[in-house]
């Protein structure tokens, strides 16, 4: 599957969702759902390059990602709801990244960790995807080569704010 074929088009929200969003009852439920989701982010065990080392370091006892409920790295995309794209996404890997993303259940979020997955980084070449947002929607970008574990934790906190404010139930 060529990369051009799998570029994402923005999904339109359904009419039911729009109607429900306007009701008072569901605004409260949205807040509870957002609170529950943001405090139980389960990332996908998924490392592509050197950034993955820093991702692993963020779960170690010194940084302890578990304090934010995001320590359970799942080995299956079916059980994960956060994809941390940590490393260079080559053209050969891009269809796999896309397939893994599609195998994750909704709701799901993506953090592009490091220069390479954010914008392509130093590898401005035909073999490297210039930013993983060309194939999957990215919520938070983390600059750095690689970012510190603290920088990743900061990104996860920003994502938690975003989840709380997004107000989606479905």
């Amino acid at each position, binding site marked *: 599957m060529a990369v051009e074929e799998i570029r994402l088009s923005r999904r339109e929200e359904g009419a039911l969702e729009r109607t429900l969003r306007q009701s008072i009852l569901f605004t409260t439920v949205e807040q509870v759902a957002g609170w529950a989701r943001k405090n139980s982010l389960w990332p996908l065990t998924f490392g592509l390059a050197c950034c993955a080392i820093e991702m692993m370091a963020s779960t170690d006892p010194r940084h302890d990602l578990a304090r934010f409920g995001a320590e359970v790295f799942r080995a299956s995309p079916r059980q994960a709801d956060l994809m941390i794209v940590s490393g260079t996404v080559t053209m050969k890997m891009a269809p796999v990244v896309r397939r893994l993303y599609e195998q994750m259940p909704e709701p799901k979020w993506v953090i592009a960790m490091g220069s390479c997955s954010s914008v392509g*980084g130093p590898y401005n070449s035909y073999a490297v995807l210039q930013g993983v947002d060309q194939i999957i929607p990215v919520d938070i*970008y983390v600059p750095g*080569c690689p*970012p510190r574990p*603290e920088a990743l934790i900061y990104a996860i906190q920003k994502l938690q704010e*975003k989840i709380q404010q997004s107000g989606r139930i479905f």
Partner: protein
Amino acid sequence: MSRIVPLFQGLWVTFRHLFRRRFTIQYPEERRELPKRARWLLNLQRHPDGKERCVGCMLCAAICPTEAIFIIAEENDPDQPVSHGERYARVWDYDTGRCIFCGFCVEACPEEALIMTPIFELARDSRRKMILHKEDITVPPSTPPRHTWLGFYRELPEEELPVMEPYQKHLRYEAYLRGIPHPDHGEARKIEFLEGEHAQHLREKTS
């Protein structure tokens, strides 16, 4: 019995760890002290009189391995110059997404306009927001000139940072990098950092 004893041996190890010092850095509240030469977000400096140090020579953009810096230089207005040189950078855009924080731009800058700060919290929610402009990373005009020389020197007290001749600056820089005490300001860097034969050689050379 042969099965129960190993169980309690293991539990004893767990129990001992209850009384150890806590290892976790509570990151948002508590921060690890970064190394003195931590290389993160770029910062554009000003002269003590408030004028910008950058003269728009584009050496940083030329040396940047990821083309993260984009500059449009313009001639200074003689009545209201922005910098001390002939030109200044009208546009100084900096893509933190591309930047790999190698510090080549800081080394290339002939005006010492650039330093690297230990600010690493750069996560943004869009690609556009990762591109910072000159206004975002230039220190405000009222800020006293703290970092007159390269960011490497920011641990020196301010009185140690007079207007220096270029060659002296070069000597200091060399001294700092090699850990050699410089006659101007005593020890540039603690020589105890280094170990082994090389450190011994340096100590003999400088004592």
